[in-house]
């Protein structure tokens, strides 16, 4: 039986390969994801270990609260005097102090140098303690006062060499510095596109506004002393708001932010790999059912020869097992290519990831193989079971087909129940209170899965009516698309063929009535087959529609929120539109002639009622440029927060029973406790609130924050938005190359653009599933052509030309694609409407333009899927086709 299964596979190589493509792609995305995230992790690990190569322990500042890593609350610097005390300890062999921060390098064009979205790292270097220095000097010298060393990548790409002057900007305005040398980080020329700038300690302290302070002390134990003894001694002299960690712990701590990001990225990508596999499993199940129907005779013959049902079952399952294994191996290696592709993709959307070479771990291999094989075998079970139902008598009957299963009668009911169960799970997930995120996501995932399977099974009922409607649509959309590419592709192609002496018909545009009519009828011929082929595309389209609808639903309320809150002419933002900016930027803007009002919103974190929350701070100008929707309090109270006033958002107020006048304590990141009094409660806009749970006055915020940053700065100018005003503002910002002035509309667009670029990443990832479903259609068509060989021969004999055969198959393909598109788009809209009903941030908006694009893409998918099967069909020699038995 094993031999039989293998021979069967070899005899049907092409069909087997087509069947497996879905698994190959799904496994490829999974293995690609692992390779990608493992590679990034290893790159980061090498970076963080490099940092502490000769270090035994590190002292850093400590936030009083457990702040999350969003960049608004870095650990506070501590007094530099500690370094001398540490050096004085007998257990300490060597100790070096350092500061670090964002340091923008400014290119010769006056723009700040950014590679992708990577950070601009700046730190102090101490050439006298080379053991603590993670930088390697490649050429030139270490920096003296007011000099800088930069990384070789920046130097090479932006045309700088040792001895040049380069602009540098950190907390204050930009200044010119001489480049004393070029460096690399360990032996790595680039850490994920980050720019490096090294200064001597004094210069660094001045630039980062940390004069007399340090961010870190690195310690090496004196030989003869144990690490523990040294740590104990250091702990004795540690002031408050500092901590000491071993080098390992510190490296781990540094990596914590990135590793949580990486695990998010990993899950995120694995989900899409899973979706592609799910779609792939439909393709497999469908292809296998078709193949098995075609092999009815063969199975029946085996049965007459004495094969048991079990043997038939194991033949089919074994075939699936081998196919799954081979596909998984292929997918595993394709994953390497995908990982490379993903690095490039992230790079292209402005998000460079560090890469020190691809990492291929055993776990990747094991997971990829298991997943590939299991999915394939599961998908083969139903068709395999059907194969066992073939009666031996089918061997002697001409044109015997698989009898519908006994359970077939219940299929629509069962399918409807599955779909309803899916919807029910989604509803429970969305509307039941108090579910953990994990339960919620599991419920949603399982619900959507069931829904898809149910609809896929049920949709054979919808095929006949949908195909009838889709028929003319397919016909005319193909005509329109053909007409569009006619002058650019078809006519030139025809000319080229003519030049090479090939006889071809002049390309026509109008549909070929009879051929297209037969194609249309073919699509209604076997509703089960058409439905399961369309189902694969349906899943992809449902998800794409969901994403598009949610995207549209997010952007509208977001724009309304911006409109509702900000009434300023201009906003000042970082070049990347989201990084916070140091306060001197706003101060510079305030000096510009013509500026009437400037207000800045600071952002940070603090702890209240036992939990870390985001907080914001506003200045006295705020009431004139920011508008809140007040539940209690008023615009005026915005400007009168004083030292203890606070504004809270409505839901936070409800949770903690805060009303106007309530008092509550809040601990800031530096450890101070503020006794706050509620001066106002506001209702955040549906599109999301730009403000923290608690908003205090800028003066209070600055007094309790080590390095305050602005998340927004808004400006009103006399004359409003004019070209002259924009130019004046940008002129004033030339000393802060990382900042730019945006008009109100540009600001809105910049904010929504980031949502749109996330949507684009999602589209790219979902495109993979659509691709899998395209192969599914190809697969079905090829199998169908094979099955209808004799019929095709007859049609050719009685006068169907090759061109007509192609058009006939294309029509069937496009109709199938359109059926998938229609059901998919409807499902996507349904799911989106459920989500929108639950989430305030999202209003249900039908993105008509996108949906039309998706439908057109589906038609194109149908056309592409038909190309190859149609060629095969057209090439059939009518004679051979007729003799085929």
């Amino acid at each position: 039986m094993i031999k039989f299964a293998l021979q069967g596979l070899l005899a049907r190589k092409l069909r087997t390969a087509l069947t497996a493509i879905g698994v190959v792609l799904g496994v490829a995305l999974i293995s690609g994801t692992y390779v990608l995230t493992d590679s990034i992790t290893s790159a980061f690990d090498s970076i963080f270990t490099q940092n502490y190569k000769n270090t035994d322990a590190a002292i850093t500042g400590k936030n009083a609260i457990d702040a999350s890593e969003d960049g608004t609350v870095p650990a506070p610097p501590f007094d530099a005097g500690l370094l001398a005390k540490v050096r004085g300890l007998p257990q300490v062999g060597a100790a070096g102090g350092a500061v670090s921060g964002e340091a923008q390098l400014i290119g010769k064009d006056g723009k700040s140098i950014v590679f992708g979205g990577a950070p601009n790292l700046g730190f102090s270097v101490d050439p006298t303690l080379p053991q603590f220095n993670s930088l390697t000097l490649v050429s030139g010298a270490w920096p003296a006062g007011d000099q800088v060393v930069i990384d070789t990548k920046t130097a090479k790409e932006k045309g700088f060499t040792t001895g040049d002057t380069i602009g540098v900007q950190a907390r204050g305005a930009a200044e010119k510095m001489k480049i004393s040398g070029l460096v690399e980080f360990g032996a790595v020329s680039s850490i994920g596109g980050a720019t490096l700038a090294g200064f001597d300690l004094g210069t660094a302290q001045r630039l980062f506004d940390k004069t007399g302070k340090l961010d870190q002390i690195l310690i090496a134990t004196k030989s003869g002393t144990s690490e523990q003894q040294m740590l104990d001694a250091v702990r004795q002299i540690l002031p408050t708001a500092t901590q000491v960690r071993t080098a390992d712990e510190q490296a781990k701590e540094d990596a914590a932010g990135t590793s949580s990001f990486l695990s998010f990225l990993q899950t995120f990508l694995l989900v899409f790999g899973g979706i592609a596999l799910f779609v792939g499993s439909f393709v497999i199940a469908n292809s296998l059912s078709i193949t098995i129907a075609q092999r009815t005779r063969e199975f029946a013959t085996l049965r007459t020869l004495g094969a048991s049902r079990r043997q038939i079952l194991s033949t089919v399952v074994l075939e699936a097992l081998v196919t799954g294994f081979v596909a998984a191996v292929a997918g595993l290696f394709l994953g390497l290519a995908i990982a490379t592709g993903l690095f490039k993709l992230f790079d292209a959307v402005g998000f460079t990831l560090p890469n020190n070479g691809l990492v291929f771990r055993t776990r990747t291999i094991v997971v990829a193989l298991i997943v590939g094989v299991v999915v394939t075998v599961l998908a083969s079970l139903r068709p395999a079971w059907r194969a066992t139902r073939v009666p031996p008598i089918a061997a002697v009957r001409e044109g015997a087909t698989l009898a519908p299963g006994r359970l077939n009668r219940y299929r629509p009911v069962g399918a409807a129940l599955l779909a309803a169960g899916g919807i029910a799970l989604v509803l429970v997930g969305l509307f039941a209170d108090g579910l953990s995120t994990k339960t919620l996501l599991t419920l949603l995932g399982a619900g959507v899965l069931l829904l898809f399977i149910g609809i896929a099974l049920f949709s054979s009922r919808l095929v006949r009516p949908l195909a009838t409607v889709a028929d003319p649509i397919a016909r005319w959309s193909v005509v329109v698309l053909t007409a569009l590419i006619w002058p650019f592709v078809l006519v030139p192609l025809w000319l080229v063929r003519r030049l090479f002496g090939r006889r071809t018909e002049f390309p026509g545009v109008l549909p070929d009535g009879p051929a297209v009519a037969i194609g249309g009828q073919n699509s209604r011929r076997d509703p089960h087959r058409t439905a399961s082929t369309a189902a694969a595309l349906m899943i992809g389209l449902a998800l794409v529609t969901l994403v598009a609808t949610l995207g549209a639903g997010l952007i509208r309320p977001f724009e309304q929120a911006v409109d509702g809150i900000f009434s300023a002419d201009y906003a000042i933002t970082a070049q990347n539109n989201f990084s916070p900016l140091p306060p001197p930027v706003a101060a510079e803007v305030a000096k510009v002639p013509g500026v009437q009002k400037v207000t800045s919103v600071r952002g940070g974190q603090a702890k209240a009622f036992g939990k870390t929350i985001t907080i914001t701070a506003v200045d006295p100008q705020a009431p004139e440029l920011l508008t809140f929707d007040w539940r209690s309090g008023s615009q005026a109270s915005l400007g009168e927060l004083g030292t203890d006033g606070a504004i809270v958002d409505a839901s936070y107020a409800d949770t903690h029973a805060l009303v106007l006048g309530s008092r509550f304590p809040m601990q800031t990141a530096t450890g101070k406790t503020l006794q706050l009094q509620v001066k106002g409660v506001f209702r955040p806009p549906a599109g999301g609130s730009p403000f923290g749970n608690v908003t205090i006055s800028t003066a209070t915020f600055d007094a309790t924050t080590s390095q305050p940053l602005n998340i927004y700065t808004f400006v009103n100018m006399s004359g409003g938005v004019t070209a002259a005003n924009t130019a004046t503002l940008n002129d004033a910002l030339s000393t802060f190359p990382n900042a730019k002035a945006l008009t109100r509309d540009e600001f809105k667009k910049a904010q929504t653009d980031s949502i749109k670029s996330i949507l684009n990443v999602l589209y790219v990832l979902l495109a993979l599933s659509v691709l899998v479903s395209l192969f599914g259609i190809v697969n079905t068509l090829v199998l169908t052509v094979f099955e209808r060989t004799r019929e095709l021969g007859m049609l050719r004999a009685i006068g169907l030309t090759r061109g007509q055969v192609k058009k006939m198959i294309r029509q069937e393909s496009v109709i199938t694609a359109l059926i998938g598109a229609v059901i998919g788009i409807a499902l996507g809209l349904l799911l989106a409407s459920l989500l929108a009903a639950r989430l305030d941030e999202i209003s249900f908006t039908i993105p008509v333009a996108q949906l039309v694009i998706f439908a057109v893409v589906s038609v194109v998918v149908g056309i592409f899927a038909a190309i190859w099967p149609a060629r095969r069909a057209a090439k059939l020699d009518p004679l051979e086709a007729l003799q085929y038995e």
Partner: protein
Amino acid sequence: MEGTVTQVVEVVDAKDLVRVYGEGDTAVHALRGVGVRIEPGQLTAVMGPSGSGKSTLMHILAGLDRPTSGSVKIDGIEITTLGDDALTKLRRQHIGFIFQFFNLLPMLTARDNILLPLTIAGTKPDPEFFDNLVDRVGLADRLEHRPSELSGGQQQRVAIARALVSRPTVVFADEPTGNLDSRTSGEILKLMRSSVDEYGQTTVMVTHDAKAAAMADRVLYLADGEIVKETGRSNQHEILQIIDTLDLQ
């Protein structure tokens, strides 16, 4: 009655047909210089033992296959040099087929199956002729049924009507009764005979069956790729005797 009889040219005129399958040692000479002329309004039967080249000859005459050498003219048009599209269009206009397996499209009704050649060619049926034809083949009450709801004989009637509906210059039938029981075969043969008599439909029929050949106006005997004998209208007995004497079993 159709006036094709008055045409001067032969509807099919084939000369020196040679068809070799394969090359070198394994080459099979299926036809070794066959010449055939088919005159309008006649039913011609082609007989011969299995492997004698009957199907090959018919396929070449019908423009489904190309000879290794030789010429075939249909209605005066040399078809061996035509391109695929031109040949396909010629088949639409001039040639009808009846296959051993009925080769009907399962998703079409009997009516649509019959009309298929016209649909493909994009021409309209002549309603009078269509009704007459359907009556003739006895399918008037079965037109809206799909092939799966028809018996073998009925399916072959649909196939015959499909071959006749476009009134082709010549109809080719390769063992049209090979797949039917003897009673149904008899009915089908009568039907083919009457289409020649009533519509003047030129027909070429490959058959193993002496009873079928006995209905023909002319019988060609093929052996080992050559025409070894030709007779006019003969009865079953005469045909069997010829087969016997020529040792064509």
